[in-house]
């Protein structure tokens, strides 16, 4: 068989169909439009089914922790009557140490049910460890394909740690240098092994996260008598936000959903030289914005993670601020966690100061930490790769050049990414990718929902972008 890049890529649809077991063509409507709700209902599982699947492998039901010392600090830093209470969902308590176990659990269950011998996932993050761990629990083989090294062979410490974790759970770990052609080798492996593609972006992965939203709502009611006013989600590929928000809706929580990402603007995600100038491997704008504006860029034909549908606000933080907050969580709350959830925690602290003291904010994840992942590991690596690290005003932070750690907790603040800008960018992508300046009624209806906008606004964006 021809294994050249172009030959393998031309077999993509057939390979993927065999490897996911979903006939996506059933949900296609016209152009950009497809039946998202029907896909989620038919392919995914109900909340109760997901809970049953997850209880078999000890996933979920993580503690919700009130951050009492941080909250005391927030009150001191806030004006009288301000300073919302922050709660943290300790997802590090999942078997492999992150919420990603939720996402992997249903996919691995599905793979086993359908008789696949193994699962493959393309991921450099916690998801690899989660798939490996769930596969171990269900007796399936597992391959994880990672983008790990730059062309000098220097590995991002957080990703190297993830390789160690995956191997620790018995997975084969294929490590590659930088580049989106990782997908090519991913297809080669799927074709060779006939394994299941445990993609992050199938309805299984998203259904697996929904109980996170219902659990935290129940826990908040127990602790405070009402659902959370705000739930902050660290946003990258969009699955965490989509799944959590769908859970919150199913729990009828009324909570506002806030996305938070670390600013990595100016660094190219596929650049060999930029690769090791990033001190965050996920939860950043390099994934957050492209996946919000064009979700179907993922490794399946239709992405079940559609964050823009569910996002009420989008807050951006700097790397230095998130490192600061990671240290704060350890020093004041006795919890060494992160980095991932700490992007949300940073947003939560800045936001809580503006909110009323009787309001509540939930940061919906933590992750395990350790060698390669903790701030000292990342900052040592940053310095070795020519990035400056110093105390100062976070406004001077420049991705890839300077990580500025605040000198004072008052300096923690967020930048708001206007959702109108993200929506307009969504429309721009749609026009570019479908080479269209006009859309059908079916497409317009879909885009209104997918970009969480209204018909008038959508038509205005199209008009503005035409010229």
């Amino acid at each position, binding site marked *: 068989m021809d294994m050249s*890049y172009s030959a393998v890529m031309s077999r993509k649809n057939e390979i993927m169909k065999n490897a996911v077991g979903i006939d996506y063509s059933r949900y296609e409507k016209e152009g950009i439009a497809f039946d998202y709700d029907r896909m989620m209902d038919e392919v995914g599982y109900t909340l109760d089914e997901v809970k049953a699947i997850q209880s078999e492998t000890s996933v979920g039901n993580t503690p919700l922790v009130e951050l009492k010392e941080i909250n005391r600090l927030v009150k001191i830093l806030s004006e009288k009557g301000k300073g919302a209470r922050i709660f943290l969902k300790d997802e590090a308590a999942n078997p492999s140490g992150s919420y990603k176990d939720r996402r992997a659990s249903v996919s691995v269950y599905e793979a086993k049910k359908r008789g696949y011998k193994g699962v493959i996932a393309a991921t450099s993050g916690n998801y690899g460890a989660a798939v490996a761990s769930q596969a171990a629990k269900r007796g399936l083989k597992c391959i994880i394909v990672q983008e790990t090294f730059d062309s000098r062979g220097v590995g991002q410490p957080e990703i190297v740690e993830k390789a160690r974790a995956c191997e620790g759970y018995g997975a*084969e770990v294929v490590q590659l240098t930088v580049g989106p052609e990782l997908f090519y080798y991913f297809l080669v492996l799927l074709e060779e092994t006939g394994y299941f593609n445990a993609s992050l972006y199938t309805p299984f992965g998203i259904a697996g996260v929904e109980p996170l939203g219902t659990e935290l709502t129940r826990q908040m009611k127990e602790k405070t008598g009402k659902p959370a006013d705000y739930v902050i989600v660290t946003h990258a590929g969009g699955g965490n936000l989509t799944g959590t928000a769908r859970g919150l809706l199913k729990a009828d929580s009324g909570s506002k959903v806030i996305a938070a990402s670390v600013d990595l603007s100016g660094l190219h995600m596929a650049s060999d030289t930029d690769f090791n100038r990033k001190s965050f491997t996920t939860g950043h704008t390099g994934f957050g914005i492209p996946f919000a504006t064009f979700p179907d860029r993922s490794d399946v034909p239709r992405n079940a993670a559609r964050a823009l549908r569910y996002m009420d606000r989008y807050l951006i933080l700097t790397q230095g601020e998130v490192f600061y907050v990671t240290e704060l969580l350890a020093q004041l709350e006795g919890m060494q966690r992160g980095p991932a959830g700490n992007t949300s925690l940073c947003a939560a602290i800045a936001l809580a100061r503006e909110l009323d003291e009787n309001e509540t904010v939930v940061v919906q994840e933590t992750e395990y930490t*350790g060698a390669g992942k903790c701030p000292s590991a990342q900052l040592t690596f940053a310095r070795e790769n020519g990035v400056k690290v110093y105390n100062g005003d976070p406004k001077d932070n420049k991705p890839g050049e300077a990580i500025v750690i605040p000198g004072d907790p008052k300096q923690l603040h967020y930048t708001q990414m206007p959702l109108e800008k993200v929506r307009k960018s969504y429309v721009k992508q749609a026009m570019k990718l479908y080479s269209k300046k006009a859309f059908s009624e079916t497409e317009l209806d879909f885009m209104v929902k997918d970009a969480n906008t209204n018909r008038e606004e959508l038509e205005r964006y199209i008009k503005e972008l035409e010229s």
Partner: protein
Amino acid sequence: MQETAKKGQWVKIHNILLKAGERSPRVPEDTRKVPLEMWLNGFLKDAEASIGETVTIESFIGRQVKGTLVEIEPAYEHSFGKPINELLNIGPKVRKILEGSSK
């Protein structure tokens, strides 16, 4: 460093998946100039092999893969890094703020 590996030993192999000229036209120029490389750990199948030789390994899940032997008993050497003063001063400072307010 050990130069020769024996059958069954845990080793690392290396392969070039795409040469510099074969890369996707969509990748940035700096990435296009370098090959797409791959590394994989596994148990050596050959009776004996030296660094730089083409060998076959059996991966953790039993897949047989060919490649150039580059490391014998590869170790994970990522660490906790060095002490970072800019972080170390955070705890004492915020504790002072908290203590000051409870007086």
